[in-house]
């Protein structure tokens, strides 16, 4: 081997330094790994905790009662006037003949949801031939017992809910469970009802419809306006101070806190234009102003990505500028514009703060049937339920979050799919 003089690279000093540097390298990599794992763990924790809390919302503990629709209780002309609550309660009492005292009976009757009588009423009104027959009906139990059945909440004091269920009620409920009269069944109410103060009767349909109308208005306004603005700014606008100002302005608007848009909506749409409070129309207007910058920015990026050669080609064939843009450039940029729109709309769907400002935060039971009916929206419903004291609302809230996230993830998947399917590399 060559007898090269001992170079710096062979000195112990360098070797020692090298070992240290290797260790530093390793540590740095580890920090990065830990940081990434923290990030991933946050995602996991968020989703796991919400899923664990939320899946229960889709099931409702119900009680099977064989109700005899005694013709004596019903008058021919007015089915509505009958005491349906009594029917339900008497059927329940029949399982516990030993319960005779008034106070105990009252306690017993609380096992069944307070909304049970109205359910039975609706059933009979829809099918009057039931009168005189006996029918097995599954009715929801009260939210406290729902929680008791699902997560043993309230059975012992360590879980913090004691005092909600008395010894007797516990005994009765356990015996109902033993007799197979209690079961967890799919919670249809959750998807077909509006808000309620009783967790077992509360549903999401009102909020879903409210969100639907709000987003519909948002989409109808923000997409055409956003696309047109993006086209103008990217393709036609002269480069001057004024268009620079518009551009800075749009970029800034994209980062303005959403609550400020709420203030705008309150001051302009409600106080100045006198539009009604709590309606999806106003919500949609506010959210479309909020979404517009996102759509414009995405639209411009999509237009920008179309290579100049396409424009030059079309212009060289004698097409006018507008023809070129509308017939050649925009169709090529459309997937990108749609992706941006979907992402913007997804953000609008999850937005809460501006809607609070314009009064979409009221207690609203009825399902809205148009953008001018008062309503809440899905995220606002989540906000309202979080504040409710009943333990069962934690589950309902988490369930609502799961549904909201499902919508958002679907929208994002569609956006990604669109991008991958139609994206062209130039």
């Amino acid at each position, binding site marked *: 081997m060559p007898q090269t003089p001992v170079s710096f690279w062979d000195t112990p000093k360098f070797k020692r330094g090298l070992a240290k540097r290797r260790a530093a*390298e390793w540590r740095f990599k580890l920090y990065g790994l830990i*940081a990434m794992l923290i990030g991933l763990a946050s995602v996991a924790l968020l989703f796991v905790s919400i899923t664990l809390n939320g899946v229960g919302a889709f099931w409702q503990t119900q009680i099977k009662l064989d109700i005899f629709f005694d013709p004596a209780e019903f008058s021919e002309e007015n089915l509505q006037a009958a005491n349906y609550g009594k029917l339900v309660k008497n059927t329940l009492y029949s399982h516990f003949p030993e319960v005779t005292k008034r106070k105990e009976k009252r306690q017993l009757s609380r096992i069944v949801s307070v909304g049970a009588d109205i359910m039975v009423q609706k059933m009979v009104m829809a099918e009057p031939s039931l009168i005189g027959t006996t029918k097995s009906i599954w009715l929801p139990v009260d939210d406290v017992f729902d929680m008791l059945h699902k997560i043993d909440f309230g059975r012992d004091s360590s879980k913090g809910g004691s005092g909600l269920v008395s010894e007797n009620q516990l005994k009765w409920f356990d015996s109902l469970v033993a007799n197979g009269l209690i079961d967890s069944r799919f919670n249809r109410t959750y998807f077909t009802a509006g808000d309620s103060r009783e967790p077992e009767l509360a549903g999401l349909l009102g909020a879903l419809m409210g969100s639907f109308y709000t987003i519909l208005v948002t989409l109808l306004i923000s997409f055409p306006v956003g696309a047109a603005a993006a086209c103008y700014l990217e393709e036609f606008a002269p480069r001057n101070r004024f268009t620079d100002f*518009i551009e800075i302005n749009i970029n800034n608007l994209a980062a303005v806190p959403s609550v400020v848009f709420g203030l705008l909506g309150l001051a302009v749409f409600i106080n100045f234009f006198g539009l009604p409070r709590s309606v999806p129309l106003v919500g949609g207007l506010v959210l479309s*102003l909020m979404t517009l910058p996102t759509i414009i920015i995405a639209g411009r990026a999509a237009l920008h990505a179309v290579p100049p050669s396409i424009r030059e080609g079309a212009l060289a064939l004698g097409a006018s500028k507008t023809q070129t843009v509308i017939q050649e450039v925009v169709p090529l940029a459309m997937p990108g514009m749609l992706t941006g729109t979907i992402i913007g709309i*997804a953000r609008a769907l*999850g937005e809460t703060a501006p809607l609070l400002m314009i009064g979409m935060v009221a207690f609203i039971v009825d399902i809205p049937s148009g953008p001018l009916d008062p309503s809440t929206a899905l995220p606002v419903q989540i906000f309202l339920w979080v504040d409710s004291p009943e333990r069962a609302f934690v589950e309902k809230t988490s369930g609502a979050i799961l549904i909201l996230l499902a919508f958002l993830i679907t929208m994002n998947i569609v956006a990604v799919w669109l991008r991958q399917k139609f994206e062209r590399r130039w």
Partner: protein
Amino acid sequence: MNAWILIVVVLALSSLLYYVAKRRSLTIARSVGGIHRLHSAPRYYGIVAALLFAVPALVVLGLWISIDEGIIFRLVLAEYFPELDRESQVDIDWLTSQILIFAQTGRLGNVENAELLQLAAARYQHLTSLSQTLRNASVLALGSIAGFVFVLAISEKLRARPIAEGIIRGLMVFSSLIAIFTTVGIVLSVLFEAINFFQIVPVADFLFGLEWSPQIAIREDQVGSSGLFGSIPLFVGTILIAGVAMAVAVPVGLLSAIYLAEYASARIRSFAKPTLEILAGVPTVVYGFFAALVVAPYFADIGARIGLNIAHESALAAGVVMGIMIIPFVSSLTDDVMTAVPQSIREASLACGATHSETVKRVVFPAALPGIIGALLLAVSRAIGETMIVLMAAGLAARLTANPLESVTTVTVQIVTLLVGDQEFDNPKTLAAFALGLTLFVATLLLNVTALYIVRKYSEQYE
């Protein structure tokens, strides 16, 4: 014929006109010797005719709808209630509600002058239907005139394409101006109310006051209202929570971005990156729920176990969750600016015998620093403007403290609590929300503009 049907009719007629105009241009073309003799392609004649019909018709319709009711009510009231005080908005509201509801449903409130109201309602109904007929006629007439005049004017010399393009371009310009209108709207609406507020509470008291207690000031019989609109505690609280958030988001976001960009294998990256980005798509109300029901009790519990008194609504819990929310924001922006650093200088560093981490720390990171700072400023702007997390997980008591274990309140929380449900604009409590909104807007504006400037400047560096 109500407005919706009218709109459908207008759209239907304008598409009909499209075909008529196109057909006519084709006929003319045949007579002058072929389509190439026309100034523009036949469909442009159709487009112009359709637009000339629809645009004026819809504009008139919009104007008509927005003013006719006001005019009708004014007429009705002048006729039946001549003694009515014109200035009394309250009475006018009341009477118009009554008339409207009676006209639509036949219900009448608990009133004395029922007969007069019924007459007025009948008159209102009459005028409304008259107005509708007039409206429909004028909308259709105007559209038709514009459209049909154009159709008649079609000749081979008519420059249809430039006209069509002019109209379309006008609509585009209008669309881009909406962004300006929005900003102007924000500034005006917030500024106007804020000025009202500052007439009641001096600006200096608001900006430098150390005590914030608007809830107490709402009732005149409670502890007096002077000096209780000092916004310092709110800003301190906001900065405290945003600080905690950044303390979580910056190291985690930066380091994970570096790990993903520099070290992770393609497989890990393709899984971890979109997973982290999920965090960016989660609505803030979900984070609020997470903070209030999972993180805050957990921290309080840990605090109790180690003998620390951690408030249930501590700045810590809200800040940490907000930090989680911002992680993907920081990491994806960092990723962008770091990948913008050219590969060639990485190679140069490696070729000098630098280790990977030395390359990142000494070359890539410093080179990307301006961009990263811009990104972090945007993240800060987000943190101070974030509402739902703090609304659900932070407290309401305005406390001047730098201890993250205590509960503080923020600007956004106060805006929402001051305004939710209350639409009266004349007391300092509600006006204060607009003053806070103004300061918030200005603060985020400054941050955003600075950040965007830095990022823009930076992205030009390697072009």
